[in-house]
């Protein structure tokens, strides 16, 4: 019992700063979702049922560019591939939850993965820790989407420059992660590939998927070269 309390306390303390960060992304998502004609209900519902920052932000940005359902889906599948890695890495640490593992799996994404792997390394399998961390993120994500959509509904998009919010949000998501040759190489390659595709066929539906498939190969190549040098 004491151990349980300790786990809950640690989980809350470690998750809180990240929950605040997630809330700021969620706020942006909520505002952006209303710009592509999502209602308060559908914007929040997407957060409730999908619960994925990258998938939801990319979805609304693609819809803003007039993308079709099928290209949004393919891009999200591509984005979600990394969840396979996270799940595989977390499986052992979540195993004691038995049949509840399927429920906990709903919370797998970037931030919980980072927190939980370091926790499992320290104390071994700990599903309770994972449940509390993801639960806090879930609440933060949904509340933020709600307030974001509420704000977005009140503002005149052109006047407040909310159309500018899409690219600017993605710039803010991209820049802090630009560290190391492979990552920077991936971004440069993606920029060139996307520009060529758009030049060949302006408004190309396939630009994002093709870029998402090809540019990481450049990062991989650079990673290998730096490691073997």
């Amino acid at each position, binding site marked *: 019992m004491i151990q349980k309390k300790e786990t809950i306390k640690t989980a809350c303390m470690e998750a809180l700063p990240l929950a605040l960060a997630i809330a700021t992304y969620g706020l942006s998502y909520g505002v952006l979702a209303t710009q592509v004609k999502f209602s308060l209900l559908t914007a929040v519902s997407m957060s409730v049922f999908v619960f994925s920052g990258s998938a939801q932000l990319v979805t609304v940005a693609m819809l803003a560019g007039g993308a079709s359902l099928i290209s949004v889906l393919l891009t999200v599948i*591509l984005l979600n591939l990394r969840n396979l890695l996270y*799940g595989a890495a977390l499986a052992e640490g979540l195993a004691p939850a038995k049949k509840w593992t399927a429920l906990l799996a709903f919370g797998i994404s970037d931030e919980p993965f980072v927190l939980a792997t370091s926790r499992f390394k320290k104390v071994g399998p700990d599903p309770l820790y994972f449940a509390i961390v993801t639960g806090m993120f879930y609440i933060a994500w949904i509340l933020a989407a709600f307030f974001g959509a509420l704000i977005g509904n009140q503002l005149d998009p052109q006047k407040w420059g909310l159309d500018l919010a899409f690219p600017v949000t993605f710039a803010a998501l991209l820049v802090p992660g630009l560290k190391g040759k492979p990552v920077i190489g991936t971004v440069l*390659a993606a920029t060139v590939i996307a520009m060529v595709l758009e030049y060949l066929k302006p408004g190309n539906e396939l630009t994002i998927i093709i870029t998402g498939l090809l540019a990481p190969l450049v*990062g991989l190549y650079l990673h290998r070269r730096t490691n073997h040098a």
Partner: protein
Amino acid sequence: MLNQWLLIGILAISTYLSRLIGVVFMARQKMSPSLRLYFNYVPIAIIAALLVKQIFVPTDGQLTISLPVLIGCISTAVAIKITRLFLPSVVIGIVVGLLVRYFLI
């Protein structure tokens, strides 16, 4: 309206499946480190592609650079590098982009 619910449903299912499959089926398999890296580079490639699509907009079948977007993005990039704060950096980018829109164009 129906389309939005359809979209939410499809995204919810595909996203949850990617999470569940990882935990249930991939756990016992050794994944190659290359595949691991590749998957990790995918999101940044997609974000970069989205940015390109928003900076270079097609008008009458030709690509034109949107200066408000480009300068707004650069401002946000600089702001987040310095402040490391997400929302303030986004707001700065929007404000600068708006100023460019109203005063330069």
